[in-house]
């Protein structure tokens, strides 16, 4: 109320007028006497009466709500009492009673954006219009409408400038990258700040014990209970985040938890939320051909009984199923003489479906208690989440308890606290990647096997397997148990001392502590742990505490206002971990006994480590506003980090931003706002601890000898802080009474002195060096466009569109360093080259070796694929790498629609990612095993010319040379049966019509580089035909490259707000029910294989993460169905 902002007055003119009028009529000096006040509350917009409005006397426990006709009656203790009106969807109002007995009041619907107050750095609340940089705000309704186990997933499609990826189902790592990956050596995750508490979330939480048993334990941020979040503010660029310093380089996500609303009576909110995930689409494995290397047919072997289908031939190129063919198979019954009897060869297309549970279930239940009566203002919240996964025997459980409370100890001193306690855990997280991953082996189960026959997998040395080399997927699901428990406590204690009206002092203690135990218990039966299974246990602890303080002076004059703050922060982090396990493959002394002492001491893998880090900081900020037209922000911060050498330890970085309200200059009235803004900011960054001076590593004992080694990574003792400099410009328009909203931002970020590891030639003695160099330039656009095309008494339709585009270019690396390699997967590498004449310098570029071709320009075969010989008479890879793609999207577009009819709301969120590629290791391994349908689909059938080599066929190949010879996609001609145009070949000892040929030539170069042809391989007689089982081009990375474009329906929900009348009848304040679904894939550009492009990122244990790589992240696509009921009483 005590607000001098003219803007505020104009916006609240009706209300202010009423207030002023009432004050005039009822002078304050009037006598103090308790009395009854009655009145009617109506909506300022359409004059309808409002039932259920909370009416309370501030600072007391007196309160009531309006009846069905919007009428209330309340007893006021004296005429200085303040009545507080609050109602969901409307601005709250307060006014002093005086001696009035009737107060009718009009509540204004809450208007978004115009004059919105947002939380900015250090938790300072600011009017959005005064900010010279872009922040984005997501409200609790948006976050909890549809249940997401990880809060980050609920931001998908709702925020511009943000890319979110996840590896799989609930509990998996989720990556959030704001304004593109700009750090070349870290995982680029933003800093999360929950009620002031910094919580670092990484995507490298991958562990697991035992050989190839890799487990994604999810990231720290998933410990935060989505139900307790009031709002999320995303500070995208350095301008917004500069005050967070060091860790703000990748942006900051400010999370504010729910508090009791001032003046509220005690309220209890209960919500229950259940989602069923129904599997809808799977990896596209073929169900046509049985296990085997050769697709025999009766005519090949002279009879209806085909050769035995042997399970140790791990390939899906055997005889065709469901053709009435018979063969001895793995489960053939034995005749009286113990000889296996042939049985029909049949496909089992539902193997995966049968292996998985029918649905996954996530059930989230929350109880919250809030009250703001008397001197203590508190809210307590308990949430329990239970998840049972699609993969049998997998689960996740969470319990979160939070308490926020504040109390005015004296009139000027407020103490408040937010405390969160959470326990996240699982009895079994499934292994990911290759190895002990049950899904991998479910997909690798040949189609002629009914997977359910593997269900009773037995135990010990007798675990049921199709053959040595196969794993039993049920065994992996039930007997490889990767459990974890993570306790986390985080919170703050804050003292705010408002010394005078203009001066205040705030001090806080912030804590974030976590304690995690991971354990793997593996029974005997996994072939990579052949010695009685294995066991491992590890604990890790993390601790961070911050002390901060902030002194603020603020003063409003008639035309301008000033706000000056200075503060400081003391950060201290420490952590430790201990791990004990059997060395891979060495196993346990006695099976099924999971103790460390059951590991032979010489097989024990043991280690522990610790770290500590501190940063001391001082900072200051000045906000200056003039006439509600110009706002200027200046900030400065200086850090002293323990991780940098003493001489470079101190680093200073300033920022400045400007907001200019054009609409107020042009006097466009309260309905319109046009804001121009601009900002310049720097952020400095330190590095991890212990990165200046090397220590020797330990390579393990060699008997009694100790083996220390000098580390292969070269450190630099003189590291400088990293420095990001950002400039951003933007325009915000809000017009037609908030019916049309636009916000556009263009930004550039220059990252200098990045601390990054680059590879060195081994002959330098080192594998790489950590340097402090380089210049990366990013720029991008963020646009949001919102509108309310329909708004009538009954109908409201809100649309919001957001657009994100970002690119990052490497302008410089260190002297003598031309590129940095990010990862190397499935014969594709992601390399960042410095921009020059031949390289575009983009981060995210993918390189691969294309098909090797004849490079002798004088040869008639110039450009033809140069094939290998013998069994390798197929495509070979070229010596050099060529650019084949980029894993970053061209742009991302999010669309949100909210359609309201009376109390019914339909919300839709769409997410369109355009451009970019990814590499699928799953495809590579599934195709090498000849199990992918795509391999069949990509075969070229020459029609009538198939089946026999001929000169006509050669001519046909030449006629289609663009596709068959000169395309970079290897094209196999022929296939597994005559239906595919298969050619005869006799590698099995029989002549089988499952041959293909790779079109090209075989030959070599003479000493002068002239191509000498050995033979053409174009389909003419003399062409080398290979069995279909060899048709996958293992060395050609492009074969595994997919377009990442997709459109997803992120969320769809239909909710019903039960009218207050009815709710009150059952003694409730509010009652909401909703039905929803989420993450439904609507379209993928390259969907043939069935990998979700969003899963194309790999959490790595080395601290980086590989974007654009997919390795058995093959949880099926699901169609979730969720129900939510929430009520307050």
């Amino acid at each position, binding site marked *: 109320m005590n607000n001098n902002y003219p803007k505020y007055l104009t916006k609240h003119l009706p209300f202010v007028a009423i207030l002023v009028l009432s004050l005039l009529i009822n002078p304050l000096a009037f006598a103090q006497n308790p009395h009854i006040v009655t009145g009617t509350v109506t909506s300022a917009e359409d004059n309808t009466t409002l039932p259920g409005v909370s009416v309370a006397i501030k600072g007391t426990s007196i309160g009531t709500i309006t009846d069905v006709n919007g009428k209330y009656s309340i007893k006021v203790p004296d005429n200085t009492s303040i009545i507080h009106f609050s109602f969901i969807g409307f601005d709250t109002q307060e006014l002093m009673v005086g001696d009035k007995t009737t107060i009718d009041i009009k509540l204004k619907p809450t208007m978004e954006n115009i004059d919105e107050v947002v939380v900015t750095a250090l938790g300072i609340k600011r009017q959005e219009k005064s900010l010279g940089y872009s922040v984005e705000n997501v409200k609790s309704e948006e976050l909890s409408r549809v249940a997401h186990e990880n809060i980050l997933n609920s931001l998908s499609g709702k925020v511009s400038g943000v890319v979110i990826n996840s590896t799989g189902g609930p509990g998996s790592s989720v990556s959030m990258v704001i304004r593109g990956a700009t750090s070349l050596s870290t995982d680029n995750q933003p800093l999360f700040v929950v009620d002031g508490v910094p919580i670092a979330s990484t995507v490298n939480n991958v562990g697991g014990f035992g050989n190839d048993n890799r487990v994604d334990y999810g990231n720290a941020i998933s410990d935060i209970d989505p139900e307790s979040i009031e709002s999320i503010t995303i500070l995208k660029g350095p301008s917004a985040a500069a005050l967070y310093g060091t860790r703000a380089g990748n942006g900051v996500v400010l999370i504010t938890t729910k508090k009791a609303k001032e003046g509220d009576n005690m309220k209890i909110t209960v919500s229950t939320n259940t989602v069923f995930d129904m599997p809808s689409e799977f990896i596209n494995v073929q169900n046509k051909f049985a296990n085997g290397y050769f697709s025999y047919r009766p005519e090949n072997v002279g009879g209806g009984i085909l050769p035995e289908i042997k399970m*140790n031939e791990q390939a899906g190129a055997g005889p065709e199923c469901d053709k009435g063919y018979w063969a001895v198979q793995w489960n053939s019954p034995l005749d009286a003489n113990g000889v296996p009897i042939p049985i029909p060869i049949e496909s089992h297309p539902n193997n995966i479906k049968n292996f998985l549970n029918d649905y996954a279930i996530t059930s989230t239940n929350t109880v919250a208690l809030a009250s703001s009566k008397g001197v203590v203002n508190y809210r307590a919240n308990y949430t329990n989440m239970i998840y049972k996964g699609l993969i049998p025997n997998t689960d996740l459980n969470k319990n979160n308890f939070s308490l926020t409370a504040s109390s005015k100890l*004296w009139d000027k*001193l407020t103490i408040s606290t937010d405390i969160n306690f959470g326990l996240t855990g699982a009895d079994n997280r499934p292994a990911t990647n290759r190895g002990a991953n049950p899904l991998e082996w479910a997909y690798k189960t040949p189609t002629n096997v009914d997977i359910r026959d593997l269900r009773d997998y037995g135990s010990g040395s007798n675990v049921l397997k199709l053959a040595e*080399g196969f794993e039993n997927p049920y065994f992996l699901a039930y007997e490889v148990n990767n459990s974890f428990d993570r306790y986390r406590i985080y919170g703050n204690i804050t*003292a705010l001392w408002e010394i005078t009206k203009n001066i205040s002092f705030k001090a806080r*203690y912030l804590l974030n502590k976590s304690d995690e135990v991971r354990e793997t218990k593996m029974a005997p039966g996994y*072939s990579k742990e052949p*010695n009685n299974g294995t066991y491992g246990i590890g604990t890790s602890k993390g601790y961070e505490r911050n002390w901060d*303080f902030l002194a603020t002076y603020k003063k409003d004059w008639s035309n301008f206002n000033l706000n000056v703050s200075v503060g*400081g922060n*003391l950060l*201290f982090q420490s952590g430790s971990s201990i791990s004990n396990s059997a*060395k*891979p*493959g*060495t196993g346990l002394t006695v099976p099924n006994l999971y103790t460390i002492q059951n590991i*032979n001491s*010489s*097989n024990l893998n043991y280690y522990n*480590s610790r770290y500590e880090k501190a940063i*001391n900081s001082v900072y200051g900020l000045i906000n200056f506003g003039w006439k509600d037209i110009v706002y200027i922000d200046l900030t400065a911060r200086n850090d*002293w980090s*323990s*991780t940098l050498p003493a001489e470079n*330890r101190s680093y200073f970085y300033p920022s400045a931003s400007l907001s200019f309200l054009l609409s107020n200059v042009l006097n466009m009235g309260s309905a319109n706002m046009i804001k121009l803004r601009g900002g310049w900011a720097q952020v400095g960054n330190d590095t991890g*601890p*212990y990165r200046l*001076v*090397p*220590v*020797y590593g*330990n*390579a*393990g*004992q*060699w*008997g009694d*000898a*100790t*083996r*220390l080694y000098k580390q*292969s990574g*070269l450190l630099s003792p003189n590291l400088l802080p990293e420095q990001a400099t950002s400039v951003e410009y933007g325009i915000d328009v809000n017009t037609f009474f908030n019916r049309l909203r636009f916000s556009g931002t263009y930004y550039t970020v220059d990252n200098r002195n990045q601390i990054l590891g680059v590879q060195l*030639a*081994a*002959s*330098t*003695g*080192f*594998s790489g*060096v950590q340097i402090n160099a380089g210049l990366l330039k990013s720029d991008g656009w963020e646009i949001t466009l919102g509108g309310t095309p329909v708004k009538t008494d009954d109908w409201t339709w809100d649309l919001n569109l957001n657009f994100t585009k970002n690119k990052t270019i490497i302008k410089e690396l260190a*002297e*003598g*360093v031309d590129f940095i390699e990010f990862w*190397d997967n499935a014969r594709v590498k992601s390399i960042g080259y410095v921009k020059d004449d031949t390289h575009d310098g983009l981060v995210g570029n993918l390189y691969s070796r294309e098909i090797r071709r004849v490079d002798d320009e004088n040869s008639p075969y110039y450009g033809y694929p140069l094939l290998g010989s013998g069994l390798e008479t197929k495509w070979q890879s070229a*010596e050099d790498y060529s650019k084949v793609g980029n894993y970053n999207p061209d742009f991302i577009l999010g669309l949100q629609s909210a359609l309201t009819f009376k109390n019914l709301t339909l919300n839709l969120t769409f997410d369109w990612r355009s451009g970019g590629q990814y590499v699928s290791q799953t495809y590579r391994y599934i195709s090498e095993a000849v199990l992918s349908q795509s391999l069949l689909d990509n075969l070229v059938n020459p029609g009538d010319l198939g089946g026999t080599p001929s000169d006509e066929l050669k001519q046909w190949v030449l006629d289609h040379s663009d596709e068959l010879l000169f395309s970079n996609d290897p094209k196999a001609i022929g296939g597994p049966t005559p239906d595919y145009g298969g050619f005869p070949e006799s590698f099995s*000892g029989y002549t089988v019509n499952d041959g293909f040929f790779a079109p090209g030539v075989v030959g*070599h*170069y003479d*000493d002068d580089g002239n191509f000498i042809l050995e033979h053409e391989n174009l389909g003419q007689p003399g062409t080398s035909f290979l069995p279909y089982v060899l048709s996958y081009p293992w060395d050609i990375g492009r074969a595994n490259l997919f377009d990442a474009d997709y459109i997803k329906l992120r969320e769809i929900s239909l909710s019903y707000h039960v009218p207050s009348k009815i709710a009150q009848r059952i003694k409730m304040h509010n009652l909401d029910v909703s039905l929803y679904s989420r993450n439904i894939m609507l379209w993928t550009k390259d969907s043939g294989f069935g990998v979700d492009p969003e899963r194309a990122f790999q959490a790595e244990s080395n601290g980086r993460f590989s974007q654009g790589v997919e390795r058995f992240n093959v949880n099926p696509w699901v169609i979730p169905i969720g129900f939510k009921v929430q009520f307050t009483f």
Partner: protein
Amino acid sequence: MYKIKNKLIILLSILTALVSSCKDLDELNINPNGVDPKNADLNLLLPTIITGIGQNVINLGFGDLAGVMQHTQYDGWSSSHNDFDWDNRGHNWRGYYDILRNDDEYHKKAIEGGYNFHKGVALILKAYTFGYIADLWGDAPYTQALKAEDGTEYFKPVYDPQKDIYHGILADLDTANMLLSNNSYKNINKVQDVLYHGDAGKWRKFANSLALRYYMRLSVKEPQFAEAGIKKITNNPDIYPVITEADDDANVSYIGTSPSDSWPSNTVFDTSPTGNYIRTKMCKTLVDTLQNYNDPRLGVWANKVTIPLVLAPGTGVDEIINGKRYVSQDIIDEYNAKYDSVGVDFDPEYVGIPAQIFSAQFYNLTPYLEQAVFNPHVSQLNDIYKETAGPLLLMRLMSAAEVNFILSEAALYGWAPGSPEEHYNNGIRQSMIAWGVGDQYDDYIKGAPYNGLESIILQKWIASWTAAAESWFDYRRTGLPALKTGESAKVPAFPLRFYYNNDNEIALNTENANAAIEKLERTEYAGSDGNNSAWSKTWLLQGTGLPY
């Protein structure tokens, strides 16, 4: 008053907390998780270097080079092992320079501490590792190598000529010999010296033996230099003692408690039915040679076939009687035609797979047609190679047998005293002692008499079992033993070197690598490769006309 006092107390306690929360930033950044190099005893680095070298010896000599030299053949995923299907993606020398980084550190600390023993050992291990680099690749960074710590100017080290590396090695070994010729040393830790347990005398012999190896390596390219060097050593045995008895062999034992310290083909940690042990079969070339001489070492290295084949008269016979499979010729012909398999070996005891055949997995009528599985009609390695460790499972860095064969060759050229035959005989004897069959030497030597260079190199080839790299180097230098490539060989000639690795050197040290590639001499077998081919000649072979 009361309230103000409280506020002051709160403020004061906050300030106290803040001040006490200030940490000493210098102390915080001292790494508690690793050994500070300044305080570390250099002995702790030594076993890392020695075992690293040893594992390379085995990786080569029991791996691809055993395939090239036809000691063994794989019958599955065999193109690298059997057929030298190599390219510039494989054979990265990173592991060798990793060893050298540690050795360099060890050497610096030895100099710092004034430890002559350690200085000598460092030089020997440096020579050994750089020797392999020069042998396998040719020109390589040597003088500018390992110096990235000294500044960015060493991030792209120039390649030194192969010749300079060999000469550098020999100079270092000479120095090592001097350093190791005293009687007392400081700071020897016997447990940490997993090769010679701190015995300077044995190290000294190792140094001089290694010098012999490298002088002989230059015998064709620089005969005068080689002659002088060998004469210097062999004419002054007091100053230049060498390894002549198997007791002094430079061998390192495995520990056998985990995959990383166990014999690579063990079946304790690798139980896959297509694992290393199963996949590795004896090669016919070696088996037949050993049988020819009735060599007792064959039984130490190989298992007899589980089921011998016997040719049965008549037609349609194929039955197993008393552990032997009787097969008639028509069945054999049909099988061989169907599987494109070559010949049949009726040997009742030992059968090796012929070198470089396409049908290795089908060889000798095996009923199990899959790749790399058990074959009852072909010899697997001896059961000892299923173990993780054992008295014969050793990393054999250098042997008395090799030294004696070098002496024999040198004597043949007149570069060393004694008769070639005497050294030849001793070479065989020492090898047989090393393999535990020394008692059968007398019988054996009668059937394998000295017969000039061919016999020396042939016996050296046999003696190099599981350390076949040295045989490959001898073959390049002499064209002996006169092995022949089989039909599945990538090209019909034995490779001469490893490719410079694309991802490492060519991508990261482009100009220098290309300059070195430029200096290679392409042979007719380089096929579709450029200069950087396994069939290009390094300086050592250029102009020698050898091996082809």
